[in-house]
Every structure is written in C-alpha cells, then in structure tokens.
C-alpha cells in the first residue's frame, strides 16, 4: 500500500515579468489502486502540479511538502523520484533524436530495476506490452517520440507506464489529442496497470470524455492553483453539464 501525500504545496515560476505563483496551496492524497481525477480549466495549474511533483527544474517549490510513503520526494533528483516509484505521463512527450525506443526503454528499465533485464526475456516483455497497447514491434527501432503522431506519443507513454510499474502515476492530459479508438486503447492500458500493479493514478484532464473509460474513485476540481471541490463520479457529471463556471466564480468570490 503506497501513498503520495501533497500538503499545502505552493509553486512559483520565474518569467520575464518576475516570479509568479501558480500553485497556491494544494492538498491531495493518492493511494495505491485508486484513481483520482483532477479536472480544471486551462491555465488552472494542473500541469504545473504534475511537473512540480516530478521535479522539473523550471518550477520552484515555495513551500509545502510532497511525500511518497513518508519519504520527502522534494529533496530527490528527478531520477530518484522515478526510482522511488513515481511516474509522469506527459501531455507533450519530448522528442529525443537519435535515441531508439528500445535503447531508451532498456536504459530506463535497467535504472529502475537496478539491473539490466535478461535480453531474451526483456524483448518478450517489451513486445508483449507493445502488442497490448496496439503498437507495431517496429516501433522499438524508431527514435523516441520523433515523428510520432499525437496518438502514438500517448500510447508510448502508457507503454512505459505498463513496463515501469510505478507505485503512483500522474497522467497529464493523456486523453488530449486522441481519437475515440486511441482513447479506448489508452484507457484500457491505464485500467490494466491499476488492476495488475495496484498503481495509484492521478488523472489530470480537462474533459470528462476519458472518465467514461477510466472510472475514477475520486474527482477533484482544480481552479486557480488549488483544489476547490472533491467528490465522486457525480462531480464529473456535473462539470460535464455545467462546466467550470460555478467553481471559477466561487474562487473569485472568495
């Protein structure tokens, strides 16, 4: 049983106009086997939350704590956080020219597991996972994310999720840019991971569409850098009907 606990997290970025506070006191707990959806309008700070927790150097932690099973992860380097069991599926996965998917995955798995997987078993494992997510085996020879379509990039992220078996996964708008078929395949991958590996998922999304395939245990509404409401699936349905207007006003009023 694992737990990612975010307490009163304040995060800033430095822009040309000076220091700007993006996260204004986030409190969240994500547990093994649970799917927690975070929904919010564009610019509310959802992606910042994902990147800050994963340790992107652009984001400065002003105050607050993030612990994974009691361990302070804010003190860890980005790779140490991954080794501790944290995974981030990115909204815009980065292209790495000249580095093949198979080389990248093998390097990553070797780092995460602490030893190089046996070649034959590894190829079997990788090809099996690629088949499940609907990726052709020739994909492993392509360069990481280079020339991938939007759907291919997202499948590649979920492929990594399945292979890396994290304790806690943050999925940043994994549903964006996907057609219905790809959305279904990616969602099945997420559900498999939760079922098989008991991964806790923080599912960041703008739309309710993905929640038809991935059923959240909890839904939180994120507006202006913090969580403003938390409930069950019914909260998502309300957002589907009424949008974020009510919550935005509430914040302005407060």
């Amino acid at each position, binding site marked *: 049983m694992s737990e990612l606990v975010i307490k009163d997290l304040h995060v800033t970025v430095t822009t040309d106009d000076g220091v700007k506070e993006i996260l204004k006191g986030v409190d969240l707990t994500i547990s093994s086997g649970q799917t927690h959806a975070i929904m919010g309008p564009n610019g509310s700070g959802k992606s910042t939350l994902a990147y800050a927790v994963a340790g992107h150097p652009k984001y400065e932690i002003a105050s607050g704590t993030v612990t994974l099973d009691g361990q302070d992860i804010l003190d860890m380097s980005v790779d140490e956080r991954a080794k501790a069991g944290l995974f981030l599926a990115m909204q815009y996965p980065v292209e790495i020219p000249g580095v093949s998917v198979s080389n990248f995955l093998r*390097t990553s798995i070797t780092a995460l597991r602490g030893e190089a997987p046996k070649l034959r078993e590894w190829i079997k494992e990788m090809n099996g996972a690629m088949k499940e997510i609907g990726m052709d085996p020739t994909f492993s020879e392509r360069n990481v994310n280079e020339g991938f379509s939007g759907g291919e990039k997202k499948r590649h992220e979920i492929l990594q999720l399945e292979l890396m078996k994290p304790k806690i996964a943050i999925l940043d708008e994994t549903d964006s840019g996907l057609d219905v078929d790809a959305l279904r395949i990616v969602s099945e991958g997420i559900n498999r991971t939760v079922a098989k590996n008991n991964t806790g998922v923080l599912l960041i999304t703008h739309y309710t569409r993905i929640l038809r395939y991935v059923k959240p245990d909890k839904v939180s509404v994120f507006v202006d850098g913090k969580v403003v409401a938390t409930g069950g699936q019914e909260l998502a349905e309300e957002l589907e009907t009424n949008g974020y207007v009510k919550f935005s006003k509430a914040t302005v009023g407060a």
Partner: protein
Amino acid sequence: MTAALQEKEILFKSVDARPDRFASSNPDDFAIPNGREEDWRYTPLKRIGNLHSDAVATQDINYEIVVAQGVISKVLTREEVKTKFLATDRIGARTQALWAKALVIEIPKELETKDLTWIKIDLKPGVQFGHIIINAKNFSNSTVVLEQTGTGFAGINCEIIAEPGSNLDFINVCDLDRKGVLVSEHQFVIDKDANVRSLVVQLGGDILRYNPRAKFSGNHGAVELLGVYLATQGQYFENRVFVDHNMKDCKSNVLYRGGAQGKDSHIVWVGDVMIRKIATGTNTYEMNRNLLLDSGARADSVPNLEIETGQVEKAGHASVTGRLDDDQLFYLMSRGIDEPTARQLVIEGFFSGIFGEFTHPDLKEKLNQRLNAAIERGHQ
C-alpha cells in the same frame, strides 16, 4: 605509380581552391599569420607550437598500416613522390615543404573490398610533418581509415584522388592526447561518376584544425564531407570546409555536427560552397548543427554559398546552434535515468545520424567507444 602521380599533377592548377584564394607549396608565399586574418581569427596561434611560423621537424612520422587485401601501400621519400600539392595557408605550405616521408595508398582498378585499410599515426612529443596520398583507381570500392592519436605538434596533409567510377569511404579520426596539436589540409579530387564519402571525427587534442577541400575533375561526381566533433574543457576544434563545384551535374553534401562541453571549449565551423558558372546541374547542401552542453562552451558557425550560375538543381545551406535541452534531460530522468547517462544518451543521439551511415561493425564500435570516452571526459 608514376603514371598516377602525373595525372594528379594536372588536377591541381596553380590557382586552386576557394575563388580568389591563393595556393602555393612555398611557405614564403604566405605571411606569418598574426591572428587578425579572416583565416586565423579563431585559431589560438599561441598554442600551436609555432607550426605557423618556424617550427621544424624534430622527428619523422611513423605510419602504421594494415591494408585490405589487394590494396597497395608504400612509404616514400620526397624524391620518390612528385606531388604538386598546393596549400592554401602557411601551415599547409610548411607541412608540404617539411615532410620527409609520405604514405601512398593505392586501391587498384576494379578492386572491391569490404575490409578496411587502416592507417594509424601515433604522434610523438616534438614537431612532425606528414603527407598522405590515397588514390582510388577506376571502379574500385573500398574504405580507408586514418586514425591519429598521440601528442606533440603535427602538420599532416592528405590528397584523396577518386578516379572515374570509384567509390571511396574515408574516415579521419583525430583523437590526440590532451596536449596534442594537429593541423591538416585535405584535398579531394573527384572524377567522373566517382563517389567519395568522408567523415572526420574530432574528439581529442588541444587544438585540431582541419581544412578539407573538394573539387571535381569530371562531371557527375559526388562527395559527402561529414564531420562529428566534440570539444571538452579548453579544447579548440576548427573545421574549414570548401567544396568547389567546377564541373557539371556534380553532387555534394556537407554535414557537420559539433558539440562543446566545459569551460573554454570552443568549436568553429566555416563552410564554403562555390558553384562556378560552368557547374550547371549542381546539387549541393551544407549543414552545421552544434550543441552547447553548458554555459562555458562556445561555437562559431559560418556557412557561405556562392552561386555563379542560375541552372542549379538544388543548393542550400543551414546552420543551427542550440543548447542541451532541459526538457529532453527531464524526460529521460523522469524515467529513472541518472543525469550523466541522460546527457550521454542525448549527445550520442545527436551524433548518431552521422555515425549511422558507416555500417562496418568494427568501425562503428571503435567510433562509438571513442565518442563515449570523449563524452565521459566532460563529466570529470
């Protein structure tokens, strides 16, 4: 042998290379550079052991050669080689005036071999000058590797002659010790339907200055001048490339990828392509991409393209210098890969497109080993 060399004499005319560029084999025809000349503005002349002024040879160069079966190699004295090599700067001319023994490699007519011909030069402390002639005869097909290591101060020129219909891969590895200095002028002459692919790999040394020049002696020739260079802390690597399209329907591709890491590392690339009035149907592209790995590194990149005819098939040039991408490192590290390994992957990936073209397994492995060693030097 003599016949081949006489043919070559015709190829190099008295005014050679870059338009309006003077060429000579006599060092006294060139003033001693002071660093303010366009040609020498980047080169740290203080660190080159007076190769540009008055350094004389303290020893001969020792050529170690392993030839592919059928390939002929000879080490000859000045009296035995009648080269008319004309240099375009003072170090090139001094090298031409001062070498004592030349290495001559001949790939016989119609010889096709997948085996490598490997020339190894291990430079020694002191000053040394060398000269190499590689002659790929009609319809031959082979690969020659020139591997230069060691220390000291050296000037080594090379003539590469590709006869009609020949295919030649030429890989020039410069991986000297930290204090080594090597200045080279290489001249490629490509005849009708000949195809030369050349790759320079600069990884080790205090100063490396490479000046490759290609021209054609027949129509429908093709040349690729490729380069991979990675300078670490304090190292200075310079490439001055010139392709002279002086024949019809010839093709050239210049692609150099450079990296610099660490304080006072400095890489320089100057690429000139000239398409003369006669050279209709030319297809040429030159590209330089540089990757700066930290804030102490510096890159200079100057592409030039001069076109005297409107009837070209394709002519383009480009230069891009960027910094190591934080987002690429973050992506890899977020998958558990530590920072040094992530940097290594990104740098290897940056260069791999060029190495990938040379598929001989021994060669590929050796190049990758040397590149990885150079990347690791940046972490120390």
